[in-house]
């Protein structure tokens, strides 16, 4: 009985750079190519690099052709467009109108992510084009 069958499989996939799908215990799938691995983690690389703990792995298989084309969440500018804090602005004393875009851009800078930024940019361009 082989003691390190998984290591052998991983090195095969690493050498051949086969696109694989790693299924985790919670059924989450991580797809990509193996970049590296050691006894505890596997580095899977697709668009981003992900470190997968081997203790959380449930199954490793070569990717299905359609597997990687799972629908990515489309950026939704409509949701990101409204002013971030309508309640807050109504509570406080009226601000100068030119402050508001700055507020919405800086508010929640930790939570604002790239898709939101893109959505905002798209919306601003759309507004500019409408004028």
């Amino acid at each position, binding site marked *: 009985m*082989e*003691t*390190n*069958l998984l290591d052998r499989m991983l090195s095969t996939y690493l050498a051949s750079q086969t696109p694989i799908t790693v299924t985790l*215990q*919670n059924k989450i799938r991580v797809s990509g190519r193996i970049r590296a691995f050691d006894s505890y983690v596997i580095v899977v690389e697709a668009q981003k690099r992900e470190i997968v703990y081997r203790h959380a792995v*449930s199954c490793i*298989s070569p990717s299905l052709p359609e597997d990687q084309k799972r629908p990515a969440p489309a950026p939704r500018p409509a949701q990101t467009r409204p002013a971030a804090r309508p309640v807050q602005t109504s509570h406080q004393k009226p601000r100068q109108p030119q402050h508001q875009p700055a507020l919405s851009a800086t508010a929640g800078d930790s939570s604002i992510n790239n898709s939101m930024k893109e959505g905002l940019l798209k919306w601003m361009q759309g507004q500019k084009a409408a004028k």
Partner: protein
Amino acid sequence: MEVLKEESRQTIEPQFLAQAQASGMKLRIGQMNKTEHEGVIRDVGRYEINIEENGKIVTLLKQEISYLSAPQPILTTLSLSAPQSALEQQAEPADAAPGRPNIQQEFLDKAIKESQSLTFFLINGQRIKAVIEAYDSFTILLKEGGRQHLYYKHSITTINR
């Protein structure tokens, strides 16, 4: 189909896997997270199994496998119960303090001897009613209908009579 040998009785799991691999039988493999695979065993490792499913080699970790199910019996157990318990006592003296009853072993041996139908509750909420044929440290061999199942103990929460 393989008759269990005297000296290898306490190792049900490796034998089951080896025989399943040799026979090329298509097994149904259930995982802890309720996903099911169906394929032929290609490699057997200590902690993982390779199966061929739809022409692809899929690596499954044993720790995540709940059961392996064969359409026909893979192992036949003949006159097992009495000598097996003796073997088991020899096999695991380290964790069993002297004079302490081994409850699990007594329970399972009795169930095997009397061919009781037992109800198993699994971690993922499934319930199975089956007759136990044999067991080892990590697995239990069950018979249900014409099928033979190998359940890993790590996926079992309770056993009811």
